[in-house]
């Protein structure tokens, strides 16, 4: 097969499967934060700050996949 076609398929697979894990993780994190805020509404500041930082950490995984996909599409070292 043409390496270009393989690169495009690889990019699509990287983004689609790489989004599953972070999506599940972020869902669990937000659900836990909602639970915590419902139990202790006065701690909303500390909880949401920690939540944002944690979400950013989880989201990095999806961003890595996106960067890999963009490298495959636009800066592929194996396509001349």
């Amino acid at each position, binding site marked *: 097969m043409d390496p270009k076609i393989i690169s495009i398929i690889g990019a699509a697979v990287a983004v689609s499967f790489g989004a599953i894990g972070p999506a599940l993780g972020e869902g669990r994190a937000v659900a836990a934060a909602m639970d915590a805020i419902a139990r202790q509404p006065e701690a909303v500041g500390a909880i949401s700050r920690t939540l*944002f930082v944690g979400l950013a950490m989880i989201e*990095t995984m999806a961003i890595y996949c996106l960067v890999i996909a963009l490298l495959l599409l636009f800066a592929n070292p194996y396509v001349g």
Partner: protein
Amino acid sequence: MDSSPLVSTVLFHIGPVPITRPVVTTWGIMLVLTAASWLVTRRLTLHADRRQAVLEGVVTGIMRQIEDVIRKDPRPLLPLLGTLFIFLVTANLSGVLPGTEAPTAKIETPAALALIVFLSVHFFGIRAQGLLGYLASFAKPKLIMLPLNLVSEITRIFSLMVRLFGNVMSGEFMIALVLALAGLFVPIPLMALEILLGIVQAYIFTILATVFIGAAIGGVERG
């Protein structure tokens, strides 16, 4: 697909150095921020008028956020982190204006900012704990953690860089794709979302830099 998000348009050359559009945008942001800071701090009085009240609100707001994280006097860190936050908000939002390109949507600006954070982590760490004390803090809680701590110094700065770059760039790229597919007014909700995400990313970058520096000066757990 003609425009790759990984290369930027070259506007002109100074000698052999190509000057790209994000660089010119950065110069514009620097000019605007410097002029605005000079204008609002020109006449500071004890009884704040409206302009000074806004300024004091911004500064004390940033200071309180830093203090919440490091649980120490935030004053030594305020110039660096406050500048970082204000620059990042302006830079992330500058992509909305026509004719400009957000500097943070290219890999170079996040890389430079992450390098600044990397160097200042060690600077503040050595200043707070002394050289030997700071070096010894890498071997805590046990000596076996030393390689892991050294690796995490590099990887967390790298992920800081890639996170900012990936988020801002993917937002702009998405808007460009939708614009090419759907037409004129369809990307407007996406642009509104992008404004929100830009501010959130600036906040996250600054908070993570604060956490890293706070860990180096011994206030919070190593992130």
